[in-house]
């Protein structure tokens, strides 16, 4: 059964390894043209879920559709449209970066000439052209990570499953990764990206799916997460003046040791109002900004709710 919407859709997906229930019930929607973040603590089932989406692992129950196909039924057709980047990146150590890509291209049934051309393109894309003909074992962790990303893109898949792609990347490469992911989404691809560097995802993702103990505990857009009640940090030249004003104005705030204060605010408009009031009250405010990323706060709130 196909639906032409593409993207990723799962309902009630379940998978156990022996007695360990790795994934209990996951409902997930990732739409084409958008970057969806898969957020959850270690052991929450992110990698297992991605393996099932990539068609490598059979779910015990539940419904999985990737690019309109069920990877457990139309494995080969689905795999032709899925690019999977594993978290533990193993590579053929003695092959050169170029050979790794041409080998994968051949494994996707591409003609040798096309494969070679594609390898050049991708090496350029992930800035490994200089190292194209060095064996993979001389690459650093971050470079291998980039090679892994290039490998997932060889066959120009419609759906990208990236498991912790940012781990081991230096700041420059992270920026590149972010741009690349945005560009791929801009080209209409579905990108599902798991990471626990949440500030990274803030800037990259459109939607977020939160997993905990193998369950979907929340799905929302990053903008919605940003608009929710969350902590903002306000700082002034004179901490005393700030504290006095907050008390006088009856605003609940937590004072920090450095003299700044954390205030829970309901979105940007509330923040603007707070700033206006403070300035009007002659408090010498130097900064007002969200304390931490939207996803990070949403994630931590979830953790609290679960206690």
């Amino acid at each position, binding site marked *: 059964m196909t639906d032409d919407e593409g993207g990723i859709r799962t309902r009630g997906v379940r998978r156990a390894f022996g007695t360990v229930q790795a994934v209990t019930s996951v409902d997930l929607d990732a739409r084409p043209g958008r970057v969806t973040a898969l957020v959850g603590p270690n052991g929450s089932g992110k990698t297992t879920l991605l393996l099932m989406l990539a068609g*490598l692992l059979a*779910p015990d129950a539940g419904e999985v559709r990737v690019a309109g196909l069920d990877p457990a039924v139309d494995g080969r*057709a689905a795999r*032709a449209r899925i690019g999977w980047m594993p978290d533990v990146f*193993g590579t053929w150590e003695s092959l050169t970066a170029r050979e790794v890509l041409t080998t994968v291209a051949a*494994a*996707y*049934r591409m003609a040798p000439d096309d494969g070679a051309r594609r390898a050049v393109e991708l090496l350029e894309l992930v800035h490994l052209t200089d190292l194209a003909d060095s064996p993979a074992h001389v690459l650093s962790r971050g470079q291998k990570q980039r090679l892994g990303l290039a490998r997932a893109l060889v066959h120009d898949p419609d759906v990208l499953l990236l498991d912790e792609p940012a781990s081991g990347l230096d700041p420059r490469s992270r920026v590149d990764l972010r741009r690349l992911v945005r560009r791929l989404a801009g080209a209409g691809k579905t990108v599902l990206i798991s990471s626990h560097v949440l500030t990274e995802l803030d800037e990259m993702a459109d939607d977020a799916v939160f997993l905990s103990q193998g369950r979907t505990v929340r799905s929302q857009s990053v903008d919605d997460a940003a608009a929710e009640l969350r902590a903002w940090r306000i700082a002034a030249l004179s901490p005393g003046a700030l504290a006095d004003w907050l008390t006088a104005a009856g605003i609940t705030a937590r004072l920090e040791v450095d003299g700044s204060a954390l205030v829970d605010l309901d979105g940007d408009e509330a923040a603007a109002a707070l700033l206006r009031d403070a300035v009007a009250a002659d408090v010498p405010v130097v900064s007002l900004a969200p304390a931490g990323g939207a996803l990070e706060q949403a994630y931590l709130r979830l953790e609290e709710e679960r206690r």
Partner: protein
Amino acid sequence: MSIAAERGTEAPASGTTPPKVPGSDWSLSWQGVRTVTQLELRQRIRSTRWKVALVVWFVAVGLVTLLTSGAVSMIFADPSMGAEGAGRTMFGVVVFFVLFLGLLVAPALTAPAINGDRSAGTLATLQATLLTPAEIVVGKLLSAWLAALAFLAASVPFILWAFAVGGLPFWSLVSVLVVLGIVLGIVCAVGLGFSTLTAKTSGSAVLTYLTVGGLSVLTLVLFGLSVPLVTTTEQVRTWDVPVDYDWEDSAPPECEWRMQEQEVFHSERTWWLLAANPFVIVADAQPLPGTEEFENAADPLTLIQYGVRYARTGPAAEQDWCGDMWFSTGGDLSADPPVEEPQPSESLVWPWGLGIYLLLGAGGVVTAVRRLRIPAQRLPKGTRVA
């Protein structure tokens, strides 16, 4: 292959047919196999371990050939022994040594092929592509076999040297080399099968070595132990000294036919145990030398070949109890006793052995392909997909 047919028709999704990429788990394309083989060979060729192993092999076989050559030239220095025996003996020793080393090396070529890749995290990378499990398995098998053949090729100069000493038909050289190559390839296939069954490479290596050791040694032990099971008491026609002959008598006895109860070893029921032995298969691969050559022969190939052929023939219908004594033929020294001598079976033994091996090898390949099918339902203990 019936499995191919069974798996070949993967049920398409009900309703509208999705854009199907052709190929089931068992389908093979040359392009896919070549991709895997090339990948494996590239990695192997670039490892120093492999080069060192090849050099050590070359030196070891060379050394054994040299020593055999020395020993043989001493033993066969006496011209009455004939140069023919020297060539045969040297050829036999070198071929068996190459087989022995090959049986040690071949498991190491494939036993870590799948579980090693799994723990290195590179197996899932291949599985996630459009390669079929069969292509991954056959590609890996082909590359391992080519590596095994490279070892065989490194010993060909020495085998040729032994052959050049003389005494063997050209056909022996060809058939022995071909059978050696096939046996090594099958050991590779068995190793590949075990490689998908255990999580650790050491586990699959041990299982493969046990299989090879079992075929090489256990077959002989079983053949020996089964003797009482296939030994029966029967009436046998014997050519014997008359019962009433008085040994004090000066006149020679006149041998006569009579029926006697005897223990008869029916080796024709158990010879196939020997056929499963790799050394027997290789020995039997040469054309059967004539009885005359056999009587002069002291080389391992011919002795084993005759041994197994006699075993296949089974017990003789008639037995000569007068022995080869002069009175056996009534004093006529030029005549043969009237007892029909057992002849070694003309039927080939090696095809049976190879048949057993091909089944084992096919078992290895089928196991491996089944274990590499995705999406994985059950994972072997202690492994993860990626």
